[in-house]
């Protein structure tokens, strides 16, 4: 890592993480079938990929991925960038990104790559890195801490309301962040930020294992809204290939602060993630809205943890799982009310929808209450997409495929309305595309 010319605190932190990782073993408690991963075979640091190795033109890209780009209506230059094709010509979003950065600078907002932050704002990084997800946290987070190559850093100063959605999309050709991505967002007192991660387009990627870490710090009175659309390569219809997405995402909310996670997970062969909230300060609020779709041989074990520490803390969980063909979908969530969390409240709703008879939906709620004043509600439903619902739509002139997409989108409405507008529209299209071929 000396190659990255990092300050000493960073190097020491990585070394501590690495030594700790050597003593750990892979966890196997999730409801997933995972083929063994060879950690020696992984390239832990790749200098920005040589553009010569990538595909030369769109003709070299999997036609199915290209068809998806077209259906999503992605402009050609952006298609090329997403597919990893060298785009040296001036790219529309570069100029967009520049004006965008100027505006943020005026407000004192820092939004840059992680390596830039380590050089330019070491005091902030040193103070907050690992403050929510310590390097000892879990196998994959520890591995990430030791070897993470880059990621995003964001700081919103006191009382500032970030005027636009911050999106990693603006940096798509600025940094190839690779498989061990690290994101740290710090919202200072009374500030607000909405952050979008990912992109609805399937990214070309040769890395099998993705072990990212996202840490959110919401200081007193701050609000962080974090939205994800994940659509990495899920493998083919037979279950060959595809990304393993083992991500640690967690936020810490101080007094009167609010954390809101919204995720739409349609990609990856295996998704394993639990965006969580530590409701540390009094009156802090945590939210988790999730749509997870598994089709073909995809597997997902996802959910959240709401850890109530402060008084009068509130959390809401809305999870929508959709399983099609042979997909397996598990919701796993923990609601922990600590002894001192006087007046804490949680509401959880977990709905599953099945398409076909070979797929599965599983729910594992863990509720742990140590304060008698807490109010915890949990609701769960499982429904099978009805033949008669599809027939009803068909009888009105709507094709079976459009009918399924419409019914599933209706099922996910409560989550989609939490997404920023354009993202929600894309997410709806994406669900439709991901479900193609699931009705016969």
């Amino acid at each position, binding site marked *: 890592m000396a190659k990255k010319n990092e300050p000493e605190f960073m190097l020491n932190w990585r070394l501590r993480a690495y030594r700790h990782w050597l003593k750990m073993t892979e966890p196997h408690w999730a409801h997933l079938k995972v083929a063994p991963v060879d950690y020696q075979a992984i390239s832990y640091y790749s200098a920005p990929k040589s553009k010569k190795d990538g595909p030369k033109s769109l003709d070299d890209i999997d036609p199915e991925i290209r068809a998806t780009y077209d259906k999503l209506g992605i402009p050609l230059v952006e298609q090329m960038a997403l597919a990893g094709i060298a785009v040296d010509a001036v790219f529309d979003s570069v100029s967009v990104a520049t004006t965008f950065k100027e505006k943020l600078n005026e407000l004192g907002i820092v939004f840059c790559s992680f390596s830039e932050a380590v050089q330019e704002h070491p005091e902030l990084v040193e103070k907050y890195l690992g403050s929510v997800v310590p390097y000892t946290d879990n196998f994959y987070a520890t591995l990430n801490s030791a070897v993470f190559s880059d990621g995003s850093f964001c700081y919103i100063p006191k009382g500032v309301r970030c005027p636009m959605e911050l999106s990693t999309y603006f940096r798509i050709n600025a940094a190839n962040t690779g498989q061990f991505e690290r994101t740290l967002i710090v919202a200072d007192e009374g500030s607000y930020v909405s952050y979008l991660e990912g992109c609805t387009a399937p990214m070309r990627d040769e890395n099998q294992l993705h072990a990212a870490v996202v840490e959110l710090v919401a200081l007193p009175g701050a609000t962080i809204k974090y939205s994800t659309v994940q659509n990495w390569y899920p493998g083919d219809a037979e279950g060959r290939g595809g990304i393993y997405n083992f991500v640690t995402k967690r936020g810490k909310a101080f007094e009167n602060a609010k954390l809101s996670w919204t995720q739409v997970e349609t990609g990856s062969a295996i998704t394993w993630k639990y965006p969580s909230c530590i409701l540390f300060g009094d009156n802090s609020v945590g939210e988790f809205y999730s749509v997870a779709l598994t089709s073909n041989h995809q597997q997902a074990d996802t959910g959240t943890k709401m850890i109530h520490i402060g008084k009068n803390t509130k959390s809401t969980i809305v999870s929508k799982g959709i399983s099609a063909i042979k997909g397996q979908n598990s919701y796993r969530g923990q609601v922990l009310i600590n002894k001192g969390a006087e007046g804490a409240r949680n509401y959880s709703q977990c709905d599953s929808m099945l398409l076909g008879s070979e797929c599965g939906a599983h729910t594992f709620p863990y509720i742990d209450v140590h304060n008698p004043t807490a109010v915890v509600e949990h609701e769960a439903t499982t429904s099978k997409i009805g*033949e008669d619902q599809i027939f009803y739509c068909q009888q009105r002139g709507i094709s079976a495929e459009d009918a399924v997409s419409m019914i599933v989108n209706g099922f996910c409405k409560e989550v989609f309305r939490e997404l920023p507008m354009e993202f929600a529209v894309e997410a709806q299209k994406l669900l439709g595309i991901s479900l193609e071929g699931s009705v016969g």
Partner: protein
Amino acid sequence: MLEIKNLQARVEGKQILRGVDLTVNAGEVHAIMGPNGTGKSTLAQVLAGRDTYEVEGEVLYRGKDLLEMDPEDRAREGVFMAFQYPVEIPGVSSSYFLKTALNAIRKHRGEEELDAMEFLTLAKEKLRLLDMDEVFLKRSVNEGFSGGEKKRNDIFQMAVLDPKLCILDETDSGLDIDALKVVAAGVNKMRSPDRAIVVITHYQRLLEYITPDVVHVLYGGKIARTGGADLALELEAKGYAWLEQGGAKGAASYAS
């Protein structure tokens, strides 16, 4: 408009329709009556294209082989069925659902798709026609609707989609008298020389408000008797048991 010849339908090996013959011309209203379990709903479902049945026979719709078409293509060609039990689609607004359906049909006909404003204008006009509240458009399709509201919503959809052949499958069941009158008035407004309407019902009650041109009795999986509007009254007076006692004789010879 519709010509059915020797239509047979089986479900899980059980024969339900045993050779139905029926001709319906444009501008006519036909009523199909019969006791429970005699195949009335099966007939409606088979015509609409439900794939749970094994079907034999021939059905010509405006000169085309109806049985060869997918359900959505039948709908786009102008076949509409009002459901005995309209289904709920949570989270999908009625206006979005109906606009999608209408535009799929318009596209099929080679017409311009309607934008949101044009659709809303049309939908509101039809709602007024049926004396229905605009709030229907905002609610999820049939979700939390009463039985009567669901039936009215189906008739509203029918008015917007402007079909050629309307099949009403026991639309009167579960309706109170006021709702029945509203539904019947809606259907009567849909009567037109280039449209045919087939009303499937168990009771004569609906036919007090919708006067049919032809009444058929479906019994034992066949059209057992065909007559004019007065046949319904005769059935009401004598009951279906009357058919068992030889009343069915000679039915097939009645040409409509």
